[in-house]
C-alpha cells in the first residue's frame, strides 16, 4: 500500500503490506499524528475509505485546525473518504472488548481499508494484564486483516521490543526528535517489518508545509547502484584548453574526479569551464553550496568562460543549496533526481564538503560517498567534485582521507605556488584511473578567454609544497 509519504515507501521496502498492522511510536511532538493523517489523506485521495479512531483528549476540531495548515489536508475529505470517530467513552464506560466490537462494526460500515487507531497507550492503561493488551491488539488486527484493512496503531510511549504489542503486530515504526549539537534532528526507524525488506537503521525526516518527507539513508537505499555500471573507455573534453592532453585525452566518461586545492586556486573555475562544454546531448549541472546561480554566471563572464550561452540554451542547470541546515540524504536525493530528470552527463559538485557539513553522523560519510559515486557512475555521469584544502600555502596538504580518495577515479591537485615573488596556480594530476596521464606540473592561467593550461611549469623545486625555488645549477 502506497504510504503517500515521500521516501517512506522506500524505507518500508515498497510501502505498507495490505491488511498488515503496524505500531507507529514516538514521544509527543515526534510527528506521529501528522504522519498518520498524511497517510490517511493520501489513501482517501487514492479512493480508499479510511477510519481514523481516536482515544485522545484533543478534540477533532482542534486536530483539524492544526492539520489545516498543512498542504495535504483537504476538508472535503472529512466524512467523505475519512471518518474521524472517538471511542474514548466506549473504552471508559464499557472496556476494551466493547471497543473491539465497535471497531469491527465501524470498519465494516465504512468499508474501511485503512484503520488508524490513535491512542494505543490509553487502551493499554485500561487493560488489567498484558494478556488483555495482547488480546485487544490481536482482535483488532485479525478482524481488520479479515476484511483486508491495514491498521496503524499510534502510541506515544516507547514500547519495549518484547512488549505484548510489539510481538503481535507486523511492523513497528519509531519516530525520534533529538538534539545534535544545537540542531534538532528528526529520525525514523523501522524496528520490525514482516512481509517486506525494509531499509535498516535511522533515516532522517522533516516536517514542513508539505507534511512529512523521509530521506532514506543513501548507502542503505543504494547499497548497490540502481542499474549496472557500464564501463566506457570514451573521454569527455574537459572544456579547459590544454587540460585534455595532460589527462590523456580528457576526463574518462562516467568517472568521478576530485579537484582539491585552497580557496582561490581555481577549483570552481575549472568546474565552470567543464560545464561550458555542455550540450543538448551532454547536459550539465552544477550542484553548489556557496555561490548563487547569478554569481556563478557573472564569475564565468568575468573569466571569459562561456557558461552563459550553455545556460541560456538550457544545457546547464545551476542548483544552489545554501550551506545552512541541510539533510545529507535530502541533498543526495535532490541531486540524483535532477541528474535523472535532466539526463545530466556533466556534473560539478562544489563542494563535497557541503554534504559533510550537513551530516550529523560523520563516520558514515565514506559509505555515503561510495553509494553516491557508484550511482553517478552507473548513470553514466562524468563528475567533477571539489574539495577545499585548509592552507593557502605551505608544505602541508590536507587532502581527503584515504577511504574517500580511493573511491574516486581521478585526483587533481591545484596549488598556489610562490615563485619569484609571484603566486602561480599550478595543476598536478595525481591519478587517472586505468589510463596514462602526464605527471608533470603545469601552470593554470586565467585569460580573457577562459582557463588555459599551456606550458609545463619552469623547472623548480618544491612546487607541491607551495614554495618553489630554482633548482641547483
Amino acid at each position, binding site marked *: 500500500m502506497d504510504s503517500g509519504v515521500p521516501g517512506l515507501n522506500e524505507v518500508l521496502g515498497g510501502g505498507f503490506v495490505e491488511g498488515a498492522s503496524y505500531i507507529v511510536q514516538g514521544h509527543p511532538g515526534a510527528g506521529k499524528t501528522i504522519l498518520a493523517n498524511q497517510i490517511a489523506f493520501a489513501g482517501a485521495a487514492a479512493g480508499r475509505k479510511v477510519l481514523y479512531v481516536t482515544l485522545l483528549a484533543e*478534540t477533532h*476540531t*482542534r486536530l483539524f485546525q492544526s492539520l489545516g495548515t498543512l498542504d495535504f489536508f483537504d476538508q472535503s475529505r*472529512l*466524512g467523505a473518504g475519512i471518518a474521524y470517530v*472517538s471511542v474514548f*467513552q*466506549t473504552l*471508559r464506560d464499557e472496556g476494551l472488548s466493547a471497543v473491539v466490537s*465497535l471497531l469491527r462494526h465501524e470498519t465494516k460500515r465504512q468499508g474501511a481499508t485503512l484503520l488508524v487507531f490513535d491512542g494505543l497507550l490509553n487502551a493499554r492503561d485500561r487493560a488489567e494484564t498484558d494478556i488483555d493488551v495482547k488480546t485487544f491488539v490481536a482482535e483488532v488486527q485479525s478482524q481488520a486483516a479479515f476484511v483486508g484493512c491495514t491498521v496503524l496503531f499510534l502510541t506515544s510511549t516507547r514500547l519495549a521490543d518484547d512488549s505484548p504489542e510489539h510481538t503481535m503486530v507486523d511492523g513497528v515504526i519509531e519516530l525520534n526528535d533529538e538534539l545534535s549539537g544545537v540542531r534538532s534532528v528528526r529520525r525514523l526507524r523501522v524496528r520490525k517489518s514482516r512481509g517486506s525488506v525494509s531499509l535498516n537503521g535511522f533515516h532522517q525526516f522533516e516536517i514542513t508545509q508539505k507534511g512529512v518527507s523521509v530521506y532514506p539513508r543513501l548507502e542503505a537505499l543504494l547499497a548497490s547502484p540502481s542499474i549496472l555500471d557500464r564501463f566506457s573507455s570514451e573521454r569527455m573534453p574537459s572544456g579547459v584548453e590544454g587540460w585534455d592532453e595532460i589527462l590523456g585525452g580528457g576526463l574518462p566518461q562516467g568517472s568521478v574526479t576530485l579537484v582539491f586545492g585552497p580557496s582561490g586556486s581555481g577549483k570552481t573555475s575549472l568546474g565552470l569551464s567543464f560545464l561550458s562544454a555542455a550540450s543538448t546531448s551532454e547536459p550539465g549541472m552544477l550542484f553548489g553550496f556557496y555561490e548563487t546561480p547569478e554569481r556563478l554566471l557573472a564569475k564565468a563572464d568575468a573569466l571569459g568562460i562561456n557558461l552563459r550561452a550553455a545556460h541560456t540554451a538550457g544545457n546547464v542547470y545551476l542548483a544552489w543549496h545554501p550551506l545552512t541546515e541541510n539533510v545529507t540524504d535530502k541533498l543526495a536525493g535532490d541531486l540524483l533526481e535532477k541528474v535523472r530528470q535532466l539526463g545530466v552527463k556533466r556534473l560539478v559538485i562544489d563542494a563535497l564538503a557541503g554534504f559533510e557539513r550537513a551530516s550529523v553522523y560523520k563516520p558514515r560519510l565514506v559509505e555515503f560517498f561510495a553509494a553516491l559515486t557508484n550511482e553517478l557512475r552507473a548513470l553514466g555521469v562524468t563528475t567533477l567534485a571539489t574539495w577545499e584544502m585548509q592552507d593557502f600555502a605551505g608544505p602541508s596538504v590536507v587532502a581527503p582521507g584515504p577511504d574517500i580518495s580511493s573511491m574516486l577515479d581521478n585526483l587533481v591537485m591545484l596549488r598556489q605556488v610562490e615563485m619569484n615573488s609571484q603566486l602561480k596556480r599550478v595543476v598536478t594530476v595525481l591519478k587517472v584511473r586505468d589510463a596514462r596521464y602526464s605527471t608533470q606540473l603545469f601552470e593554470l592561467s586565467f585569460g580573457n578567454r577562459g582557463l588555459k593550461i599551456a606550458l609545463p611549469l619552469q623547472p623548480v623545486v618544491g612546487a607541491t609544497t607551495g614554495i618553489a625555488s630554482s633548482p641547483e645549477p
Partner: protein
Amino acid sequence: MAIIVIAEDEFLLADLLASFLEDEGHEVRSAPHGVAALKLVRAHKPDLVITDFMMPLMTGLELAQEIRADLTLANIPILLVSGAQGDIGRDHPQMFNAVLDKPYDQTALLIAVGRLLSS
C-alpha cells in the same frame, strides 16, 4: 426545564455540552454514538436532540433520518453541531432545524438551544 439528548463521540465536548445545559436547568442524556442516542431518544422523547455528525456506528444524518422516519419522534427539533459537515446539515433542512459549526462558544450554543426550545 427541557429534556435534551446529546449524541457526541468526543467525551470532552459531550461532557462540556452537558454541563452547560445542566447549568441552565435542563435534564441531559448523552450517548457516544448515533445508535445509543437513538435508544435514548426513543426512551425519553426529548424536547431537543443535539448531535455531532461523524460518530461511530451511526452518523448524525442517519440519526436524524431515523428520528424523522418515526412519527412519534418526527417533530423533535434537532441541532447539528459539526466541525466539517455543517454544510451537509444545511443541505438537509428537513432533517436539521439548525446547524452550529464547531468550534462554537457558550453564547451561540445557548441562543440556538433557546430558539429551538421556544419554537
